[in-house]
């Protein structure tokens, strides 16, 4: 077999390992399902009435935003998993095997794609139950779903880096949820940007989450897309281009300190 074939085989073996973990750690499953569902219900039934979204039902406005947010955090399993591997010494075992070294990273991020698909199914099902409607062409919906998976994949690499840089799974949790989580709120995900104070608007406007959420709205609701979809894809590729090499670098450094 060639190096590439080995690389693919190693990646698949480790992606499977990453996926086997999910049903065996029910708390992870809660993070994937119950938490986003609760968020949808909270925003639709608690905050929704107080948020004015001219031109949209709030549920239609909300769903693309909240789906982008949850897909972004889907990669969190990778941060926890890598951090755990480091702590428990498993990283040493993998690094002493003749496998493709980066397969530990590509395997985990690939595993995330599968869990993200599962998460999208859950989110869209809940969305449709609480009254969300697609109002765009079929191929736009498909394109939107693919874009979401790509966004999720990009953030898996961000989380891979966080997991390798953090000193413990708890620290990884703190980086992810105390820094990245609030950033997703300063965007068009939950409220229209023009309802924010004027000093905050430019920040929210240029937040990549805003671009991604607006792109998702364009593809699911048929709103004018402008450059949003292309910009969202550009951001996604930039994130992968920065964080994939950064994670591999960090992985090697963790390894050969």
């Amino acid at each position: 077999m060639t190096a590439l074939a080995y690389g693919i085989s190693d990646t698949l073996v480790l992606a499977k390992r990453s996926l086997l973990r999910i049903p065996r750690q029910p708390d992870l499953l809660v993070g994937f399902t119950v938490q986003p569902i609760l968020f949808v219900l909270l925003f639709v039934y608690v905050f929704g009435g107080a948020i004015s979204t001219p031109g949209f039902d709030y549920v239609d406005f909300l769903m693309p935003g909240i789906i982008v947010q949850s897909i972004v955090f889907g990669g969190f399993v990778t941060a926890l998993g890598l951090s755990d591997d480091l702590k428990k010494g498993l990283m040493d075992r993998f690094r002493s095997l003749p496998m493709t070294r980066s397969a530990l990273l590509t395997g985990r991020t690939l595993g995330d794609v599968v869990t993200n698909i599962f998460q999208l199914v859950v989110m869209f099902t809940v969305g449709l139950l609480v009254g969300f409607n697609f109002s765009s062409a079929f191929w736009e919906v498909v394109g939107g779903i693919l874009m979401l998976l790509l966004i999720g994949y990009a953030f898996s690499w961000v989380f891979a880096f966080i997991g390798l840089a953090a000193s413990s799974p708890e620290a990884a949790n703190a980086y992810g949820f105390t820094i990245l989580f609030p950033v997703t709120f300063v965007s068009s995900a939950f409220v229209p940007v023009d309802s924010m104070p004027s000093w905050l608007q430019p920040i929210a406007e240029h937040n990549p989450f805003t671009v991604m959420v607006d792109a998702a709205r364009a593809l699911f609701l048929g709103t004018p897309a402008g450059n949003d979809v292309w910009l969202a894809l550009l951001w996604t590729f930039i994130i992968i281009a920065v964080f994939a090499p950064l994670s591999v670098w960090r992985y090697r450094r963790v390894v050969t300190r």
Partner: protein
Amino acid sequence: MPADPAVETAGLHKRYGDVHALRGIDLRVDTGSVFGLLGPNGAGKTTAVRILTTLLQPDEGTAHVAGLDVVRDAKKVRQQIGLAGQYAAVDENLTGFENLQMVGRLYHLGRRVARARARELLADFDLSDAADRLVRTYSGGMRRRLDLAAALVARPPVLFLDEPTTGLDIRSRIGLWDAMEALVAGGTTVLLTTQYLDEADRLADRIAVIDQGLVIAEGTPNELKSQVGGDRLDIHLCDGGRGEEAISALASIASDRPFVEDGSILVPVAQRRGTIADAVRRLDDAGIAIDDISVRTPTLDDVFLNLTGHAAEAEAEEVESR
């Protein structure tokens, strides 16, 4: 000429910031032998193993495993080695079987071969009944056995065991020793690190004692023990004032000059068998009453006191790079 060594290092140095973990280590492990690296926490044992298993790069010096340079041919080295260690690096969220199968696949064994090998090793390590249970339900001893099994999946010619029994109860330790002895009988070269003299004594053909990043003694277990002083009779008399009389009564069974320490008379002896009976008879003949008598075997503390002049526990924590 002996066969090519399975492991050979020359002048290995490694620093972590200000800590000089290895300060020029030279080792030679013959193919098919068991080599014990003995030392306290922080001596540099783990660092040496991490370099030999390609997890770390040395700052200076060279290391070869199975004739391959661990830096330049790292990937080839990884095909020749197995690593098991004190951290029982197995995935808690997989079953025992899944762990071994995964490792087999990552050694690039075929799907069927990996499955068959996993079953075979589970049977060898007495884990067949627990094969399909998640590892997080395993006891400490079972995890170590699985960890050792994982290191053997590809039948590597050179095996590195980093403190394989640290923290285990005595029954599990003996179980692991039996497993390791079986391996060695099969011709595998083993480099073993340990803090326990009895472990090195039982398993190793040769031992290197390392302390503060340097090899301070090397030899067979017997050579080392005799360097430390071998077995000693430890005698407490009812009347402490008759020490000199007792020493002269025992002079003929002592292998070296007896001496008094903390009120005990310590008599170096060449062999354990019959020694106590012999000593009791001689003291009885001389009319000297014994309060307590025992044979003491040198401990790691004795080795360290003897070789370095400081006790093993006084060392700083091992510098870990994890």
